[in-house]
């Protein structure tokens, strides 16, 4: 039987041995451990927290931020088994094919492989999320009884579908720790160490191999873990923090010979009330306004720029949702009257709705994590986040929304008002997806990426990174199910190299 061990009971000075160390018990780390269940590998998974929230452990996330407004660093993540799946919204959607491609208008774009490479693992990833029947963009075939998809006709935006994670017999998203604890315990060669914080990645003198991991508990125990290979799966901020702070052998930090670790941090801005949508026929089908159960899946429809539109218009990815009903001001009423009068449209039942959006940001090396001089309770330097969002990213989403306005008029079904114009408008409306990405970006060239196509850290033989920190570009899809596909692919790779 596998075991859950309270690291606070491990005597200081102990040296643990394993074939594989997984640092982090969030969805990525847990999924890799589950995927290796049938292998002969002895795996140790370190989780900073326990089975439930603990304020003192959570405080290890505290860091500072400069630049554009952003969330406090400790707000986006939860530090106990299951990680941030303990408070996620359960939104799932695959990345698009174009998200993997180099695009002339998007600097630093291009993954080392195409979408097909992770599609092989998507079904399993979706299954781990318990997101029901695999429908996504086939949902329309099964949702007919609930109403019509908006007939936008030819143009840039199309209806596409989210699916939602759910625990069995509940509508709550899957909390990976609680949900998979029993399965982890059934894995004979797996040990899960709770309350165990990785505080140093110890390179050997060649700097080309990880020799050991230093582990500490908030109760003062310190011990080491030696393994043939190590996967860091701690989230985009903590992964970068650990790699940068492990600077005793390589002064710039582990895997940071090219000054890339911590750069390219990203999240999905989710500005509220980006636009006002008027539908001449009244309310849209219910699957636009909230989650609906269709053919064994919980789904919601959104409006997305098509891949063809993105290519033709240098558009970034976006997901646009129809949110609350809203009222029109005098100008809005006049605009509706003018349009329906001039175009000869019956809009007696028209209704207005606020639109939310999730937007992709352009990769930016100066949006980054660095180390503070301030230290946490384990003497680790705290993280500093420099946040920046470019005006061009706002302008691109605005252009996409404008195209939606055009399509609505063309289809004679509605019209649109763009609510955000100035940079301050956008910042005032800003919310975030809490999707930390990018700080250990993947690229075949070590000068452009921290990890290679196999998620191995360039220049280090036995160190890997799992999670959305490896995303070179970000798309607009919710990252969890996609990072799980990558993690499962990594597990498959490790089965081969650690045989």
């Amino acid at each position: 039987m596998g075991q859950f061990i309270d690291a606070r009971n491990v005597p200081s000075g102990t040296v643990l041995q394993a074939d594989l160390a997984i640092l982090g018990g969030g969805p990525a780390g847990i999924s890799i451990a589950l995927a290796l269940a049938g292998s002969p590998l002895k795996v140790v998974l370190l989780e900073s927290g326990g089975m439930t929230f603990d304020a003192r452990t959570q405080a290890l996330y505290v860091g500072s931020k400069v630049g554009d407004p952003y969330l406090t660093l400790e707000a986006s993540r939860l530090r106990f088994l299951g990680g941030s799946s303990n408070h996620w919204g359960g939104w799932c959607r695959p990345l698009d094919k174009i998200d993997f491609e180099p695009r002339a208008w998007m600097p630093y774009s291009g993954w080392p492989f195409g979408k097909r490479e992770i599609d092989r693992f998507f079904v399993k990833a979706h299954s781990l999320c318990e997101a029901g029947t695999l429908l996504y963009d086939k949902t329309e075939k099964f949702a007919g009884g609930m109403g019509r998809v908006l007939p936008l006709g030819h143009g840039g935006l199309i209806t596409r579908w989210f699916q939602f994670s759910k625990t069995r017999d509940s509508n709550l998203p899957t909390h990976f720790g609680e949900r998979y604890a029993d399965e982890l315990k059934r894995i004979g060669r797996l040990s899960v160490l709770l309350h165990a914080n990785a505080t140093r990645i110890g390179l050997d003198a060649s700097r080309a191999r990880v020799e050991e991991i230093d582990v500490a508990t908030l109760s003062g125990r310190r011990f080491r873990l030696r393994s043939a290979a190590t996967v860091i799966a701690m989230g985009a901020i903590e992964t970068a923090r650990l790699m940068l702070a492990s600077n005793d052998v390589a002064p710039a930090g582990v895997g940071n010979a090219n000054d890339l670790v911590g750069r390219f941090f990203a999240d999905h801005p989710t500005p509220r009330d980006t636009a006002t949508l008027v539908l001449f026929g009244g309310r849209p089908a219910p699957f636009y306004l909230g989650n609906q159960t269709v053919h064994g899946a919980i789904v919601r429809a959104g409006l997305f720029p098509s891949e063809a539109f993105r290519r033709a218009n240098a558009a970034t990815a976006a997901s646009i949702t129809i949110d609350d009903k809203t009222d029109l001001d005098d100008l809005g009423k006049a605009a509706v009257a003018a349009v329906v009068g001039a175009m000869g449209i019956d809009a007696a039942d028209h209704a207005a709705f606020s639109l939310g959006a999730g937007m992709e940001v352009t990769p930016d090396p100066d949006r980054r994590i660095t180390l503070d001089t301030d230290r946490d309770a384990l003497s680790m330097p705290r993280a500093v986040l420099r946040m920046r969002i470019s005006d061009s990213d706002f302008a691109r989403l605005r252009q996409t929304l404008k195209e939606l306005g055009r399509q609505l008029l063309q289809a004679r079904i509605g019209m649109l008002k763009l609510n955000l114009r100035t940079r301050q408008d956008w910042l005032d409306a800003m919310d975030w997806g809490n999707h930390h990405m990018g700080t250990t970006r993947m690229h075949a060239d070590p000068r452009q990426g921290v990890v290679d196509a196999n998620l191995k850290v360039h220049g280090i033989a036995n160190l890997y990174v799992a999670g959305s920190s490896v995303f070179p570009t970000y798309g607009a899809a919710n990252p969890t199910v996609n990072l799980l596909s990558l993690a499962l692919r990594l597990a498959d790779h490790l089965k081969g190299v650690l045989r």
Partner: protein
Amino acid sequence: MNISRRDGIIATGAAAVLIGVGVSGHYLLRKRHAPSPYDDLLTLLEDRDADAQIGETVLAEAEDFDPKTIADNLRAHIGKRPLAAVLASDVAYGRVVEAGGWVLPQTLGLLCALAAKAET
């Protein structure tokens, strides 16, 4: 009761005036717009006052708006087509403008802007 011929004429005349006022009241009470060089275009608008309000927001975002040139271009663009057909063509070919954030067919937005110009 005897009504003199003079009183009868006065009563008939007064009744005629009242009927005339009643019939044409709508026109008498309607806001008068000063004649403008674009009236042939502005008659296409259903509610010129409200549309002028929209037009102000179009003008606020237009860098160079020469009403005479715009009007000439609109006359050529619209030709003898119904306005609804012109607007459908505009949006099909991506010709839209913003009015206080509202995405409008270009021709409608420009007509509204002319209505606003005609008020100034």
